[in-house]
């Protein structure tokens, strides 16, 4: 496959692995967080950790959209489908996220909820046009990558005068999550989570650009290398991070220059700013309540805000006590450190959200890497 195979070349990956092994300094440990689930998936799926020297450890970050979605938010969506009888549209993985009462959107569908998977907001708009007598709600989740399409859908609905379409907005912000991790006592005070640098997001950065990460590099003295989601991208980024650490640099470098610029996609940013504003606070699974970390729909587009339209009240619901998703999302624990990993909690029956998406740290380790724990 053109433009993809080039980034999955095994020979080059092994060469990069050898370069990394030759570059790491003896007696020094390197610990990098890959923020995005896309990177976590690539590392597990291509077995990249087998190509790294043992002194380089990858810590999985919270950048998996469904993993950080708190139970209370999924509950709202389920309520809309089951109690208000709306057609609820959402992206694939979201259907499996566990919610209260043993439900998920998938299970709510089996109980009669009209819940539909869509590939894009355009599909959701079309469903609204095709069903003028029904309320259609798009359950909008994700980081900055999926935010612009939601903004465009709301503006499109507004322009068309589509009266039966609204959005349950759960869009969250990457920089806020990174700050939260860097400010956490485990990283800042106790040093229990050693973090020598970040692999910065791929798709998110195509929208927001590389500029927002400059603050982290400066303020927290952490190198950031923005990298694409292909396995060679990840290997190259690790090499660049090792070099920065060795040379005592803390800069933002851009490995994903084929798609990311310093300013990002200004048109998309404008659309987002027109439609959304910052929420004062938002609950994340794993990170709990993070101030100014998510978006809500502006007053100008209030008619399309499902929270206002259906007068929804958010109620926070604690995670299952045994579930370690919170600690795993902050990099404090690894999936195999969780007592219920692979026993009570499996991809078939996820207790925590990290077991839901193949981008989630637990599901990635369960699906691709758990043989390593047993052999």
């Amino acid at each position, binding site marked *: 496959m053109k433009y993809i195979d080039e980034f999955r070349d095994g020979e080059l990956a092994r060469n990069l692995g050898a370069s990394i092994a030759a570059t790491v300094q003896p007696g020094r440990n390197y610990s990098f967080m890959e923020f995005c689930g*896309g990177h976590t998936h690539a590392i597990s799926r*291509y077995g990249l950790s*087998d190509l790294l020297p043992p002194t380089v450890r990858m810590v999985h970050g919270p950048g998996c959209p469904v993993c950080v979605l708190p139970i209370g938010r999924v509950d709202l969506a389920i309520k809309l489908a089951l109690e208000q009888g709306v057609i609820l549209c959402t*992206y694939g993985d979201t259907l499996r996220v566990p919610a209260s009462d043993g439900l998920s959107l998938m299970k709510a569908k089996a109980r009669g909820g009209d819940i539909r998977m869509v590939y894009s907001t355009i599909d959701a708009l079309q469903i609204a046009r095709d069903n003028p007598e029904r309320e259609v709600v798009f359950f909008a989740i994700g*980081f900055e*990558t999926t935010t612009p399409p939601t903004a465009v859908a709301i503006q499109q609905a507004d322009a068309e005068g589509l009266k039966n379409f609204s959005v349950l907005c759960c869009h969250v912000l990457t920089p806020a999550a990174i700050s939260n991790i860097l400010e956490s006592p485990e990283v800042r005070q106790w040093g229990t989570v050693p973090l020598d640098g970040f692999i910065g997001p791929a798709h998110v950065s195509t929208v927001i650009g590389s500029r927002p990460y400059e603050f982290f590099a400066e303020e927290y003295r952490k190198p950031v290398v923005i990298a694409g989601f292909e396995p060679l991208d990840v290997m190259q980024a690790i090499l660049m991070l090792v070099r920065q650490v060795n040379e005592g640099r803390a800069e933002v470098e851009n490995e994903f220059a084929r798609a990311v610029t310093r300013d990002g996609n200004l048109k998309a940013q404008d659309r987002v700013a027109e439609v959304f504003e910052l929420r004062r606070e938002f609950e994340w699974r794993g990170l709990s309540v993070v101030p100014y970390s998510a978006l809500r729909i502006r007053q100008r587009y209030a008619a399309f805000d499902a929270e206002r339209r259906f007068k929804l009240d958010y109620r926070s619901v604690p995670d299952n006590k045994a579930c370690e998703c919170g600690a795993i999302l902050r990099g404090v624990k690894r999936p195999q450190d969780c007592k219920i990993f692979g026993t009570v909690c*499996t991809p078939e029956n996820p207790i925590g959200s990290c077991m839901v998406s193949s981008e989630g740290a637990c599901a990635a380790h369960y699906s*691709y890497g758990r*043989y390593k724990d047993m052999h």
Partner: protein
Amino acid sequence: MGEVKRGYVRPLDLKNGRVDMTHGSGGRAMVQLISELFAKHLGNEYLGQGNDGAVLPAPTFNGKPGRLVMSTDCHVVSPLFFPGGDIGCLSVHGTVNDVAVMGARPLYLAAGFILEEGFPLADLARIVESMARAAREAGVPVVTGDTKVVERGKGDGIFITTTGVGVLPDGLDLGGSLARPGDVILVSGSLGDHGVAIMSKRENLSFDAPIESDTAALNGLIEAMLATGAGLRCLRDPTRGGLAATLNEIATQSGVGMVLREQAIPVKPVVAAACEFLGLDPLYVANEGKLVAICDASDGERLLNAMRAHPLGRDACAVGEVIADDHHFVQMTTAFGGKRIVDWLAGDQLPRIC
């Protein structure tokens, strides 16, 4: 089944007509549907007996008595018509293949139709014709059948269940529990074609190179493979859940592990691209005209040559080996030289968001 004397009723309107409740009520309309559509296309000496069941000769394999193999498969595909096939030929291929991968020669099929009130007769005719063609090509007649009509909204147009019977020669035993460490794993051709053809039609995606379902009857290919006398342990057609599910099933049944070589697994570039686009993994995507063979390593090359000599096995290749592993993992050496598990599919394959 019966026959209504011509002239008593108008012929079925196969252009604009629709299935209605009378087509399932046991009266003239039902008999007419059977005779003008099902019997007309699928007809053969057994179906023509017109009784509640078909009387069939005792099965033999090359003149010798054999054992019966029986399998059944329900077909509920959406869309009903897709590039490379439709629910009609699929319902024949699916069951013929399930019988054939047991090592048996498929002999007869039974077909049950559940039709939804309002279903266009023109579509039904297309489906039955396609079934008839597939049955003819596979050499396996439909010898008995049944039709029911459900009210509008209680079905999805048409569901077809087919049951197949075949004969298995004494001395030949294939099964999922017979794989042994050291055996080789062969596939008969490129993976994921059927599932991706369906998905791209469902999502209304078109690609420069059309993706067609691989739906096909494999009994001819399997006869050619058996004729080599190679030490075959197990044959399976990797339908739902794809190659990954099939190999995990066999690994569990046989109490072994497996190691695949990612680079050896054949996937057409257009299918790989579509999977990339749709967020799917071709290893988990359904096939309807491919098989997996587990075979004694010493016979692998000979079996591969026989497969490649058959049009449905042209792209056959070895993709991995059976190993001893108490955990029964199916592992894969990635193109990177790293290793990972090829796990069971968890629920449906849902696209990732990031």
